[in-house]
């Protein structure tokens, strides 16, 4: 029997980017996974946690565990929310076996595809120059690719998946993995710096010839897309799951 996956769709993706949820579902089902979307899920609590409001996270973390503990795996198209569950829930659950299990079986979507399902290549065609934005939490907390600061063997399964698609070319950036400046409430509290960071990222993609800007996190893309549209730049923004789903 196929493993039963609980699909974890972050609140802002549910509300603002349903197409990312749909694409994720489509991909998982394409690979024969039995997917269920537990309806009572809302938010993992990351915005509150990042603001220091621990008390406000506790009930959400407990809800999350209750909702997802019975699945074989939990998969989510956002490195940042997965990192919240895997790395920042510890303090709310001391010596809780169920949580330890949940932590081990929660995956970012691309990570699930490449490390659990061991998918190395994708069929299909996507004849575009694609810019991959390395979202920080996926990169430096979940270690879903190698970061430029560390002296380690370079790796990047999401990039490899993209490169396996026919006609798709991943663009070369001058600053491979600098932050886009979203940072949750940072985007609003430090608006000036946040927007300058975003603008610089967009410029880097422009000079690299990016036609389609993608990432493992819709939140970074929401911020970058906001800048791209305000400045009317000819770059299209797609979550990586949307590119994959188009290639199925």
């Amino acid at each position, binding site marked *: 029997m196929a493993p039963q996956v609980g699909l974890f*769709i972050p*609140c802002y993706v549910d*509300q*603002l*980017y*349903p*197409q*990312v*949820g*749909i694409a994720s579902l489509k991909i998982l089902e394409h690979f024969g996974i039995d997917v*269920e*979307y537990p*309806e*009572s*899920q*809302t*938010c993992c609590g990351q*915005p*509150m*946690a*990042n*603001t*220091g*409001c621990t008390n*406000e996270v506790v*009930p*959400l973390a407990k809800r999350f565990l209750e909702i997802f503990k019975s699945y074989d795996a939990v998969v989510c198209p956002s490195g940042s929310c997965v990192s919240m569950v895997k790395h920042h829930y510890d303090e709310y659950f001391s010596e809780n076996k169920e949580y330890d299990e949940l932590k081990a079986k929660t995956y970012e979507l691309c990570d699930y595809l490449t490390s659990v399902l061991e998918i190395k290549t994708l069929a299909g065609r996507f004849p575009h120059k694609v810019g991959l934005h390395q979202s*920080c*939490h996926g990169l*430096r907390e979940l270690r879903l690719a190698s*970061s430029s*600061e*560390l*002296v*380690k063997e370079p790796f990047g399964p999401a990039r490899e998946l993209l490169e396996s698609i026919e006609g798709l070319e991943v663009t070369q950036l001058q*600053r491979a993995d*600098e*932050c886009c*400046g*979203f*940072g949750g*409430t*940072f*985007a*609003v*509290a*430090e*608006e*000036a*710096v946040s*927007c*300058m*960071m*975003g*603008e610089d990222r967009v410029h880097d993609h422009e000079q690299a010839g990016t036609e389609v800007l993608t990432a493992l996190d819709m939140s970074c893309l*929401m911020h970058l897309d*906001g*800048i791209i*549209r*305000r400045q009317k730049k000819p770059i299209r923004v797609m979550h990586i799951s949307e590119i994959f789903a188009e290639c199925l």
Partner: protein
Amino acid sequence: MPSHPKLANEFVKDKERAKWHDQSLWFVRSKRDKAVHQLPEWELLREQASKIKSYVVSHLPDLLEEFEKNAKAKGVHVHWARDAKEHNEIVHSILKQHQVKRVVKSKSMLTEECHLNPYLERHGIEIVDTDLGEWIVQLQDKPPSHIVMPAIHIKKEEIGELFHEKLGTEKGASDPQYLTESARQRLRQKFIEADAGITGVNFAIADTGGFVVCTNEGNADLGTSLNKLHIACMGIEKLIPRASDLSVFLRLLARSATGQPITTYSSHFHGPAPDSELHIVLLDNGRSEIADSDEFRRSLNCIRCGACMNTCPVYRRSGGYSYSNTVPGPIGSILGAAHDTKANSSLPFACSLCASCTDVCPVKIDLHHQLLTWRKEIRLKGLLPLSKRLSMKMMSWMMQAPRLYQFVGKMARKIVPYLPRFLVYNPFNAWGKQRELPDMPKQSFREWMKQNHDRK
């Protein structure tokens, strides 16, 4: 104290300058990358350094005693200062004893932390910073904006102007070589006139009682060898256990700081020169309290290389002064919050949590985690602005009630698309100042699922 966002906003307003600042620092970060990628053992070195430093911080009292004993045996006078005030008084009393009127100083962020310069000046002692960058900011009557490159925020044309005004160099000159040479000439005079030299300490060695000062300009040596009195000021965490540990840190420090394999001068001081006096002032100033804290102890591993500043996308775009703290950037936000939480409560939020600082830090301090922990402390101490606290409370409340959450989302999707632009994009909406909001979809993912997906 003005908050970080406010000062950062001012800095970013001059876009060209902010861009130039960002690029200058990114250049240093790139040099660092090249230098560290030449060492296959880099991560091993970091691991080793981190272990040594953690050992030091958890054995501080013993190691400090060992250092004191060995230093005294070499004829060094050892002094202890609890806080900045005591530190300054001790330094002053030593200078007074020797009737010193002029001092040259090199490489000491610690004396910046204590505001030693204005203190000594008030007591009629001239004190000159001899590191070129530090001297430039001293001439401007400003503090350093970076711990390794104190004047990184000043353009060479501005230095030309400053030198013209203060040193009488040619008007309009901006050639670095000419300006540096003019500065050298003037500083040489200061070295000759001085009666004492003050330096910082990069590494003090417990098992020998000696210490090392790293400079690129050689002025620590000049300042201390021309004078019969040398006062070294150090934070109590600057210790390493054994002389044999030193190589690890010397290899890490310069590469992380500037991308050099090693600093041009690593000057070792083991006891006073003949006919001279060597004093060392050991300063606590809140450090032992940090050493006692499980969450923040590791911030004392810091060897002040500045790499976390160079890599920090916020520091690069907001400048050192936006932190209003002696040490800026990621590590400065942690130390600043520890020193005066209230005054520095905006600093741990001046961070997008990108974690680049954590990966770049040569002693593996988990900087971004500590910044996050500070946010919690600030919330617990009731220092989080009411607006943030309330919005998070409301959000949490809504997220605990899935039906309410769905309802609010639905309403937003119905209403927002029909609102006139000025209602959505206005001064109260910081998101919309320079960014578009996402378009509201017709239905949420949840609604789509209900309609389209077979329930099994």
